[in-house]
């Protein structure tokens, strides 16, 4: 188990014109459960492979517990990694598959047997222990892949690269719970790559959101929801995502559709592109108060109804509890305490909560 530090880390694949990972400075603590969240192609897997040593970064250093491991091989780093699609050794039995990483490291025979038995029980594969791995279902194969990552107890960190993609939904919950339990029991440093926000938010203490090769925010699920540091985080987290509305700045006030919103700080870079961020949860509909909304669609999602519409040329979504009547010609008002102001996509101010609009 180790803390992980990334110093000025960046990566560009040979022959690619752009950086897959932009220069980043990160420090992740020993024993933490982190989720790397982001859309496909944002560099999550690249970052994971750099940490495990499968890929050498083109710039920067990787440190485990303040020791530089950039030039060490995967074996020397002593890392466990689980991949997106099942990797099993076809000709071996299930038990041999699980024992393989231990045998390669010359661990005593009775210790191997004990750990394999533990892993089989944890993954509910006892009955298939002596079957050839080749004959298993995709679910069970992925369980073996997970198991090979978890049998080694002395690893510096365990990295998961979207490990539950191929797993059945009901089994997903069960395995995610197992992973959480394992984390609580062994306190491994765990990094979990996913593009599924639910998975990230339930697994991790700290969620690292990546976008276009850069880390845009690290925080608890609540921080990501309430104060997204980047418009992408706001849009990506939450369902539907945060509304991002172009606005003007006037001193310490943001102006949108003729309404003025007081900010908690004055803005000093008037050349930037400004946008207001407001969650659909923080928008109130009423027949009389606020700005007029042209409704374009209603979506019933169970406990809520998503009201989609247009306001001053911008798209807007609002959430209304199921059963609450939606006015004929609704007007909307924003909860100003939950407004964020973005300059060129990065958060620069919040709304002041003392005013009602």
């Amino acid at each position, binding site marked *: 188990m180790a803390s992980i530090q990334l110093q000025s880390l960046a990566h560009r694949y040979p022959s690619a014109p752009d950086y897959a990972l932009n220069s980043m400075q990160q420090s992740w603590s020993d024993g933490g459960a982190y989720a790397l969240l982001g859309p496909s192609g944002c560099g999550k897997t690249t970052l994971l492979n750099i940490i495990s040593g499968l890929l050498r970064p083109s710039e920067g250093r990787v440190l485990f517990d303040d020791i530089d491991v950039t030039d060490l091989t995967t074996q020397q780093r002593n890392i466990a990694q689980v*991949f997106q699609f099942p990797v099993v050794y076809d000709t071996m039995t299930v038990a041999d598959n699980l024992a*393989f990483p231990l045998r*390669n490291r010359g661990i005593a025979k009775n210790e191997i047997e004990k750990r394999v038995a533990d892993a089989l029980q944890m993954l509910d594969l006892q009955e298939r222990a002596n079957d050839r791995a*080749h004959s298993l*279902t995709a679910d069970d194969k992925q369980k073996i892949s997970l198991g090979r990552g978890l049998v080694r107890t002395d690893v510096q960190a365990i990295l998961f690269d979207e490990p539950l993609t191929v797993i059945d939904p009901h089994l997903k919950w069960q395995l995610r719970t197992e992973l959480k339990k394992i984390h609580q029991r062994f306190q491994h440093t765990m990094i979990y790559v996913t593009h599924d926000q639910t998975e990230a938010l339930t697994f991790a203490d700290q969620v690292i959101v990546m976008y276009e090769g850069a880390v845009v925010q690290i925080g608890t699920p609540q921080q990501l929801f309430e104060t997204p540091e980047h418009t992408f985080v706001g849009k990506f987290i939450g369902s539907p995502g945060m509304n991002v509305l172009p606005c003007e700045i006037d001193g310490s006030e943001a102006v949108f559709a003729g309404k003025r919103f007081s900010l908690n700080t004055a803005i000093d870079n008037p050349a930037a592109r400004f946008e207001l961020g407001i969650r659909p949860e923080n928008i109130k509909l009423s027949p009389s108060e606020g700005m007029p909304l042209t409704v374009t669609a209603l979506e019933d999602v169970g406990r809520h109804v998503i009201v989609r519409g247009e306001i001053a040329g911008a798209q807007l979504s609002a959430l209304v509890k199921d059963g609450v009547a939606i006015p004929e010609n609704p007007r909307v008002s924003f909860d100003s305490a939950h407004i964020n102001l973005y300059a060129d996509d990065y958060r620069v101010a919040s709304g002041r909560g003392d005013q009602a609009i």
Partner: protein
Amino acid sequence: MSIQKVQNNKAWFMVMPVLILVAISAIIPLMTVVNYSVQDTFGNNEFFWVGTEWFQEILTSERFHNALLRTLLFSGLILAIEIPLGILIALAMPKRGWGVSVCLVLMALPLLIPWNVVGTIWQLFGRVDIGLLGHGLASLGIDYNYTQNNLDAWLTLILMDVWHWTSLVVLLCYSGLVSIPEVYYQAARIDGASRWAVFRFIQLPKIKRVLLIAVLLRFMDSFMIYTEPFVITGGGPGNITTFLSIDLVQMAVGQFDLGPAAAMSLIYFLIILLVCWIFYTVMTSYDNDEQSNGGGPQ
């Protein structure tokens, strides 16, 4: 309640062309051979039924036994050399970059040369008076002569076959190797697997199927080898490189013993079928294990 299926025999007309082609190209010639193998003739299109006499004669003849042993030894040596060598070369070939096409073209070259030309190339190559190999060895003081020395004759034929056909094994194995997803190698690095373990548990199982094809093709081809030894050694010195095929042609065309030759052809054919079946059964036995274990759905 049962629904009567509509029977329509017109479909048979659709397969007619294929049936006719196969009949002309394979079944009728084969039946002719069967016909010869159970009869004797003294010309004038007169035939006498002899039953299994020719088969008994062939099966008990020392000449046939020796030719069979020579052919089996040749095929065994060819497989023992070409299969491991082919795998090794395929493993060593680059997987990306400009080297790939260079290697593939180099590997394909020997396969493009006609058999009799290969024979002629090596026949000249090995000649002591003018051949690069033969003369080179002679000038090094090594006594090499494939027309007189039994061992030299065998060495030349085996070297020639390895040169000619290892490429086929290489190309088949290479196609199997490049289809292995990168993630398997990554997982092996995570699991701390040695180079040997990567080969034993990832590469070998993944190329098993193409390897089976390579083994079958190389066995059949080497077991039926005719043109090259005919050109290079003509079956000699003595009878030392007279393989079954050469022996068969001598019997059928040289001595005009059509009956025994037909019986020998059929035995020859059955041996090839039998050995291929054995290879196939042994190499796929592991897959069958799984099915009988009631493996999970895929």
